[in-house]
């Protein structure tokens, strides 16, 4: 177990499925060099098959006694879908637009499909997924070369590409299928939680670009961090499929707010919720029912009194209040290793357990503003 754990909380009530996070990640990391098919960040529609197709059925993770379970390495054509492109350059010559490979599956293939009968009780919601940087990672446990490690300083799970031999047992071992094989270099690659950005005071690209402001990033042991409050203090953020036994560190505010169902005559069924409670329980465990209650009662409390710290947190009035990246902490580590300190390239998000001095206003003065 790492000394500290950087975590992310995603508020599914606010996710609009715009894929800005997906694009932010892709252009930053995965649009080249054999990573074209990889989505370190993707947003899938639930219910749906997801990416890779049916990832929840592909094995990996641990059984109740803590033994790593068998899994499957997905097939590019059948399970991920070969990335395709169009003959744009030939359109001017009068050719018809055609893809270069027959599309079979892709990262948002079944977007917005959902389940249920329209218009009475159909429903869907979005689940953005990145590597969960698990406390007990399935990928790390499966590696026969000890090529995967969990950073002591922040729990980020990384592949040592020098040791990796491309065996792909990690892919079978990860129940979220969030580690990918790069066929060009014959090695496994995965979400790195944008650690080079984090160390310089920038949130992960997916989190910073999120237009819905659904993503909070901070250290779990930092009691002033949003993630600590949402996960540990108010217990309204839950890990996805914790039954896989990997102890994920990406947490979700479950989608508690959905429209009511209609009856046969098209009238609203008061007090109903389109998202079946058992589906939420499958994804987030039994604790989800308590979370739904808490959020609902907070909304009522806010209506009655105008006050609710949970809602204040979730609304995220200031973008800079969503991230506590603790630059002094990383600099302390750099110093202890005799490395030069990493100056933040953007001081708006530089605060944390070990970084208390930066005030909101001086931050703005330093950076010449910054959007809210």
């Amino acid at each position, binding site marked *: 177990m790492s000394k500290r754990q950087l975590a992310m909380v995603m508020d599914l009530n606010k996710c609009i499925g715009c894929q800005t996070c997906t694009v932010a990640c892709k252009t930053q990391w995965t649009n080249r060099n054999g990573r074209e098919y990889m989505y370190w960040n993707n947003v899938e529609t639930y219910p749906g098959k997801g990416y890779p197709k049916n990832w929840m059925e592909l094995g990996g993770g641990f059984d109740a006694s803590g033994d*790593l379970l068998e*899994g499957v390495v997905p097939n590019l054509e059948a399970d991920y879908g070969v990335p395709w492109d169009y003959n744009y350059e030939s359109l001017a010559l009068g050719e018809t637009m055609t893809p270069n490979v027959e599309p079979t599956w892709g990262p948002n293939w079944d977007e917005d499909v959902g389940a249920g009968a329209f218009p009475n009780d159909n429903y869907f919601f979005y689940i953005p997924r990145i590597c969960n940087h698990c406390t007990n990672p399935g990928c790390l446990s499966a590696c026969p070369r000890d090529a995967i490690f969990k950073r002591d300083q922040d729990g980020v799970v990384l592949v040592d590409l020098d*040791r990796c031999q491309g065996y792909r047992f990690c892919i079978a071992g990860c129940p979220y299928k969030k580690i990918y094989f790069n066929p060009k270099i014959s090695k496994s690659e995965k979400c790195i939680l944008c650690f080079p950005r984090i160390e310089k005071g920038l949130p992960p690209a997916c989190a910073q670009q999120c237009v819905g402001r659904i993503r909070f990033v901070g250290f779990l042991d930092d009691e002033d961090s949003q993630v600590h409050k949402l996960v540990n203090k108010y217990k309204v953020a839950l890990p996805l499929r914790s039954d896989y036994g990997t102890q994920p560190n990406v947490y979700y505010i479950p989608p508690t707010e959905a429209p009511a169902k209609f009856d046969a005559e098209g009238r609203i069924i008061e007090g109903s919720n389109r998202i079946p409670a058992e589906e939420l329980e499958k994804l987030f465990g039994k604790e989800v029912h308590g979370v739904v209650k808490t959020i609902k009662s907070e909304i009522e409390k806010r209506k009655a009194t105008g006050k609710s710290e949970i809602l204040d947190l979730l609304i995220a009035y200031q973008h800079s209040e969503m991230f506590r990246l603790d630059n002094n902490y990383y600099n302390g580590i750099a110093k202890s290793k005799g490395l030069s300190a990493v100056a933040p390239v953007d001081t708006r998000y530089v605060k944390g357990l070990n970084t208390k001095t930066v005030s909101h206003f001086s931050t703005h003065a330093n950076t010449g503003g910054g959007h809210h």
Partner: protein
Amino acid sequence: MKKNKLSKVFGLSLLALTSSGLFAENIVAMKINDSIAGIKDDSELWANAKEVQIKLYSQTTVTMNDKITNDKNSDVNSYKVAKIKALYNDNNEVAFLIRWKDGTKSVQEGYKTDSYGDGFAVQFPTNFSDASKLPYIGMGSEGREVLVHLQKAVPNVYEPNGNGNVELQIGRKNTNYFNEELKQFDDEVKKLAKVDYQKSFVSAGFRSMTEIKDGSTKADMTMIYNMNHGCWKGIVSRNMKDEYIDLNKSSFPIAIAVWDGDKNNRDGTKLLSSWQTVSLSGREGGEALVSEVSKTVEGNLTNGKAQFEANCASCHITSEMKSAPQYMAPELTNIGGYSTLAYIRESIIDPNAVIVPGYNRNAHKNFEWYQVVDGKRNSAMPSFNWLEESVINDIVSYVQTLKAQEEKK
């Protein structure tokens, strides 16, 4: 009742086997005067070298976590035969020609996530001055390192090479080039692509294998597939001595492994031989190593089996005895196929001498194969040195019979 009958039949067939003397034959490296660096498979120099057959057994010590791979490799009860020839000269060069059957040529190629290449490897101990204390066959052990040369069947692969030419490591569509310039870019990238997947490793047990990248050890390796015979030929040539190994003796040990890409073989899912011996023709004094490595013992198999069941089977699984928990200890179905007598005996008497590191330490936490005390590994297995010598002999002779008995079809 049924079990009794079975074990009787089993015991009988074992007796028949031991008496037929199907034990590993020594490989004699023929001395030649020509240079053999980079020797080809069709060189006439091979003509007079004697070909020796060695058996390759499915590695069953650990089971990996890939379901499709495990399904494809469920037959662990048959072995594959490899045929090997060896040459050497006074110019410090040695070469091996290895042939093995593989009905499908598999090359890990293209933009695929679940394709695997065929491959082969040769393994040498870094020290074999005491032939009774050779490294563990599965990539060595602490204090007993091995050198491994690996060749895989792959097409061009491009690895970031540390030369700083990052401008060539982007997708062609991310460049600013068009037409001729784009073609030039493609050519440059192609030039950087490695046309070979050949690696050398030094290793002291599972998980410790580390690639030697500084060129301090070198081997020429090629793989040629013969479509008509459904057979691979692998050639290895190298200097007998470098800073890792010194084969320039009268005899030395070698071990071989092959991977079948069609069966998703890679890493531990492979077929491997026991330590074999190579003696250099015309040199005296290599017999001690040869006889130590090929030594067998003939004890009472019926008692050996009973003693194994009583003392070993509560932790170790074999193809016959499956009462032990799955990940508790090395699986021994083919242990007799890839172990020397000395290793089996040593493991029983002094389990700390060679500790099989086993699974990733995080994969099966309930069953640690060793504990680390003051930086030193202590085997979870207790010593059985309190058993009578004759009982140990019986167990060892039984364990030697634990291996696939039929050749793969």
